[in-house]
């Protein structure tokens, strides 16, 4: 078990290292340079060169990368080329915001999605199953900006029940922040609901059809016990994997939602950094998401192994 996790952690570190190199090289391929991005296309080339020199982006690429990665490993994310101030507060704030939004979306979608899947499976091929399956599929395929704008128009512009912008006032308490996060989390709910419900449904169908369920029923166990003890435990395994993989999306891939709701998440931070070729911000942002993703996957693996002893045993053998 321990060696299993040690191996998984080492693999994650190698992946993150390779990711940092790929992001750096990818950033170099993008046209233009930092000085040009800051001063604009119509700036004098002498001014652009002077700015690049001040920022240190005219140094050899290897030097730039090595300096940055060495500092990152020691806990220093560097200084933003664009904002000319330390990167860490930007990344930490943005990550915190993204996690808050992701948490609200998760708290809404995970239980309701699983419940939807379970109810659908228990009502297989009945109208309720079709409503949940087809309804979930329909809302999942709708892009977030479409559902986002529709929700804003209904709840923000017409009814004026919820704030359009997710940026809460300064010093806002927990409940105020929650209030501001309801509207932006709804499009995420709609995107993920169908996905999670579908996985839960298929897991349930498989589990309900399995030998151990049949055995449990034949043993005369009450139906509720069969579902809770035998079916759900096995049915949720693939769902947990799906939820873990969606963590990366919820933390790092919400550029559209963040733009639409003016939310200062890490997705838009990375997007801005990529456009401005702000390498320290870009690298730090992406690597931070990479770390979150790696940790989420490790937690999923852990949960999986707790729920499924075969994995534990397999790893120890």
């Amino acid at each position, binding site marked *: 078990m321990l060696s299993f996790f040690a191996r998984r952690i080492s693999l994650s570190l190698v992946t993150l290292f390779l990711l940092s190199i790929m992001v750096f090289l990818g950033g170099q391929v*993008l*046209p*233009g*340079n930092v*000085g*040009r*991005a*800051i*001063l*604009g*296309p*119509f*700036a*004098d*080339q*002498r*001014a*652009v060169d*002077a*700015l690049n020199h*001040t920022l240190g982006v005219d140094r050899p690429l290897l030097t730039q990368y090595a300096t940055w990665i060495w500092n990152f490993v020691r806990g220093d994310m560097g200084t933003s080329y*664009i*904002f*000319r*101030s330390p990167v860490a507060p*930007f990344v930490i704030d943005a990550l915190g915001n993204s996690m808050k939004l992701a948490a609200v979306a998760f708290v809404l979608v995970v239980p309701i999605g699983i419940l939807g899947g379970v109810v659908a499976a228990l009502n297989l091929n009945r109208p309720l199953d079709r409503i949940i399956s087809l309804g979930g599929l329909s809302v999942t395929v709708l892009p977030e900006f479409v559902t986002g*704008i529709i929700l*804003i*128009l209904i709840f*923000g*512009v017409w009814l*004026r029940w919820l*704030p*359009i*912008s997710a*940026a809460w006032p300064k010093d806002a308490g927990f409940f105020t922040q929650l209030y501001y996060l309801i509207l932006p989390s709804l499009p995420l709910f709609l995107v993920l609901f169908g996905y999670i419900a579908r996985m839960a449904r298929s897991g349930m169908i498989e589990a309900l059809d399995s030998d151990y369920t049949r055995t449990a029923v034949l043993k005369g166990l009450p139906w509720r016990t069969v579902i809770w003890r035998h079916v759900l435990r096995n049915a949720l395994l693939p769902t947990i994997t799906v939820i873990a993989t969606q963590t990366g999306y919820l933390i790092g891939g919400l550029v559209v939602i963040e*733009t*639409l*709701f*003016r939310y*200062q998440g890490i997705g*838009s*931070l990375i997007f*801005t950094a990529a*456009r*401005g070729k702000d390498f320290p911000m870009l690298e730090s942002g992406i690597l931070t998401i990479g770390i979150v993703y790696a940790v989420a996957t490790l937690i999923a693996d852990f949960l999986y192994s707790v729920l499924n002893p075969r994995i534990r045993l397999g790893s120890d053998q």
Partner: protein
Amino acid sequence: MSKNYRILDLIRRSRSPLENHLIDGLVDGRVSRRDFIRHGSLLGLSLPLLGGITTAAGLSGMPSLARAAGAAGATIRVASSVPAAAIDPVTIADAGGLVVLQQVAEFLCVDGPDLVLKPALAESWKPNDTGTVWTFKLRKGVKFHSGGEMKADDVVASIDRLADPANSSNALSVFTGILQKGATKKVDDYTVEFHLDAPNGNFPYMVSSDNYNAVIIPASYKGDYETSFDGTGPFKIEKYTAKVGASFVRNDNYWGEKALPDRSEFTFFTDVQPMILALQGGQVDIINQMPVLAGVALLSDPSVDIISLKSVAHQQLHLRCDSDPFKDPRVRRAIALSLDRDKLVAGLMKGRASPGNDSPFAPAYPSTDTSVPQRKQDIAQAKQLMEAAGAGKGFKVTLTTERYLEIPEYAQLIQNWVKEIGIELELNILDQGGYYGDAVFGKSNWLDSVMGITDYGHRGVPNVFLAAPLKSDGTWNAAHFKNKDYDTLANSYIAALDLEAQKATAGKIQNLLLEETPVIFGYFYDYLTATAKGVAGVQPTAMSQLFLEKATKA
């Protein structure tokens, strides 16, 4: 109204020959009242004096500004784009950043919505006889927010900082060939002279709000503007949070009339759609700059007012004069003749634009020669030109451009129109980074493409448009247009101090460019600002500045 020659004579006695020539032009009817006021302001004549002269010349005086309609003491909430970089007067280059900067810091003069230059930190200015030295008299008793008095040393340091190539100055492209570091000289504490590289009849615009970096800040500035936001403006910084927003409070020590609002709040958005929703949802009062296509829904929204300024912002369609298939000017003219400019204005721009005539001389400029005929769609003539140039069978060519504002839609319209004269246009629409590239020849789709569309912002005078994209040695000459006659005419226009001389040269330039057509200027679009009903006294400029000191809310 009759002319009062006695008063006119009295005024004329104390004026320079150049100023008197302008006054004569007004009295004789050679110069319109509107052009007189614009050009008079450029020469440094005060607005009350200009009003007095127009009244004495038998015309109505200056238009009075509408009085504030709502209550003072409000908090005005503005939606604006996210500043693209740190707020620094030297490097700032984008609308989101410059609107924040302009709330706290001021210019020597301000280019108003009618292109009339209005005094701000400078009370008056005037050129020498040749236009090589411009002398600015500074306002006395102006205090920085940090406490010190604004004097000539601060002006010299602020402008020198921008003209120094070592400083990463975004204004360097404005001052190159015009004003060098060290050429701004203090005469006394309240007088500054600008010694120019060459005569320049429009120089005051280069140190006005037209050059958004040219705010006057303390001489001691060391490059850490976000720690102080020091300036002389009617508002002081309250709080600035990068990427999020900024708020300002009234400066009670302001040299002029105190601001009416207690506070203003700027909220930064990365996209215009959320701005529109925020205005409709009552979370902001103003959208600083609203692109017409994105904001179509607001144009007819009864709860929204649109402030529409005639600007000269435009999209330049360049045709490479040194490459096939555009070497022959007849082919270039044929393409220009295939465009339906009325449809561009009415359809693409929803009437919020003026037709272009393939030169930078927009209808809004007082020096534009309006007697030059407007080019209109003429497919038959375009086909004849294609035949004459040996391109009757047509050809295939790529139009490279950027995904910005209405440019992709404009490109599609051009694609349809040139099909009628046998040209098959392939569109290559890139993001802005990909289009501009390194923005130097050989490393830029913008400057290297055989045909492209590039966005150009507003300028109060056409100098920059005449030089950089069109002169043989122009740094933005994407058309690779090299014409000695044009270069001479452009230099002559830039040097001219007299409006009528400018207009005469403008006419020649306009005719030459119609003949050569290296760049197609299809339309000049209006600058739109949206405000919630009940918000009054808001004064935007087409350079994306937003003056809020007279703003009120119902």
